[in-house]
């Protein structure tokens, strides 16, 4: 049983299907529901593996220990968000603070961040996308959970990655974001700096794995105690190059650069 994060659910499903092809005797059932749901199920010992797009909290660890468990953490993939603009846009780099100000509506013109005198058109995924929530928490609110800043109301909410790519490709006013794996050569990727004194970094498997690129997160699997038998085999396989190829295919960043 494998339950948790909706961000991870497609990846976990792809892994489970592939693993079932290789080892037909192993049946893995995968469900989503959110990281909290997955970890709660782990605490209640109703799942073998919990998927989470955030780290387990100390409170959750204590609850698990009170139930006789001992969560063990595995980083199984990484998720990075690329900031994209039109190829004709002269802006190459932005700080996290500038991105936050652009998306919350404080910066409304490209000239304020070193570009031409053009209105900024903000593009975002729909609110039900895991990427949307990650962007809100880590870019707009810059990781501060007490910050209640929201997206500027005139942010365009597009239903698909395709919509964001095509509007960014055609329109020189736009700024958009998307999972690193979905970025096409038709758009320009912006280098991002954590703060004004940090270097500007382009997203790549290397810069994400080294922790230099600021808009990235680890994706986790948790088990109760060190896994043994079938579950250990499965998690070892997930860490293998064969399974990490699937990570790249689904638009995430593999933990070991291919």
């Amino acid at each position, binding site marked *: 049983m494998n339950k948790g994060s909706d961000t991870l659910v497609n990846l976990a499903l792809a892994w489970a299907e592939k693993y079932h092809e290789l080892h037909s005797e192993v049946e893995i059932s995968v469900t989503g529901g959110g990281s909290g749901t997955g970890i709660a199920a782990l605490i209640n010992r109703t799942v073998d593996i919990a998927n989470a797009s955030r780290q387990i909290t100390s409170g959750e660890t204590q609850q698990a220990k009170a139930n006789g468990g001992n969560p063990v953490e595995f980083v199984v993939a990484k998720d990075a968000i690329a900031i994209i603009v039109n190829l004709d846009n002269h802006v190459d780099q932005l700080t996290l603070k500038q991105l936050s100000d652009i998306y919350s509506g404080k910066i409304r013109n490209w000239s304020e961040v070193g570009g031409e005198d053009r209105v900024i058109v903000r593009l975002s995924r729909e609110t*039900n996308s895991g990427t949307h929530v990650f962007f809100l928490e880590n870019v707009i609110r810059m990781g501060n959970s007490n910050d*209640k800043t*929201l997206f500027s109301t*005139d942010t365009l909410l597009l*239903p698909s990655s395709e919509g964001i790519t095509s509007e960014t490709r055609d*329109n020189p006013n736009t700024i958009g974001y998307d999972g690193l794996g979905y970025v096409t050569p038709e758009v320009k990727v912006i280098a991002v700096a954590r703060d004004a004194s940090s270097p500007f970094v382009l997203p790549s498997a290397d810069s994400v794995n080294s922790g230099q690129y600021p808009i990235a997160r680890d994706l986790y699997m948790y088990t109760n105690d060190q896994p043994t038998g079938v579950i250990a085999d499965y998690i070892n396989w997930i860490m293998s190059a064969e399974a990490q190829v699937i990570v790249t295919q689904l638009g995430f960043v593999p933990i070991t650069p291919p």
Partner: protein
Amino acid sequence: MTKSWNEFILDWLIKISGYSAIIFVALIFYFLLHEGLPTLSEVSVTNLLSLRWYPIEDYFGILPLIGGSLLVTVGAALFAIPIGLCTAIFIAEVSPRWAREILKPLVEILGGIPSVVLGFLGILILAPSLRRIFDLPTGLTALAGSILLGGIAIPTIVSVAEDALDSVPRSYRDASLALGATEWQTIWRVTLPAARSGVLTAIMLGIGRAIGETMAVMMVTGNAPVIPLKLNSIISPVRTMTATIAAEMGEVAKNSTHYHVLFFIGLVLFVISLGINIAASAAALRQRQRAERILS
């Protein structure tokens, strides 16, 4: 004996299918009420009538969505009604018989194009062109939605209005022409008023098609929940009720507040289209009564 038995069965089959339409509407309405009304106890009225729609942080202001739908629909009506009626008049009254035989099926084929295909054309051609022509920040606007919806509503309007015009008796036109009226005066003063209730139905069906359309609108209006109160709202992005339901229903947890609010929006949509329907049939009925009074 067998004959009456057959008739009995047929009679009932027809009755059942007739009543089932009413029953389905009633069931849909009941379901919407059942799933949507909990909203009123879960969300405060001030929140519901606020200007911010951001459901994942419990901001449930539906006014921007209602405004977005109304703006796009009114825009679509402004495009579709004149063009649709003129096309219908041309096909029914002006064009020669052979052209009519070609044009009518062509318009009906146009009505069969899936809206998602039109949406793609909207994203790839319409929105970029609007942005260039009007020098807008983005082409994904209420205007793009209105044009696209107008295009979707036109075949409906043309088809129904043309049928209505065509069913006006030949003798009306002959009488008018014999009295010395020109062709245009005959169309404008005699044929069109005579077909009034059918034409009104055509317009309503067209508007109904427009307000309920989802896919195409979601693709081209930009979906930004901004309340459209300013003059330039038509060239700004808007978010419609239908697009909101379509975009968010798939991921929402059953029986959560957000789920109930989405059904509440469905209820609002239902009431609005019911209102349009009732208003239009009332207008048609009033005109028929007046016509009967004049004739008697």
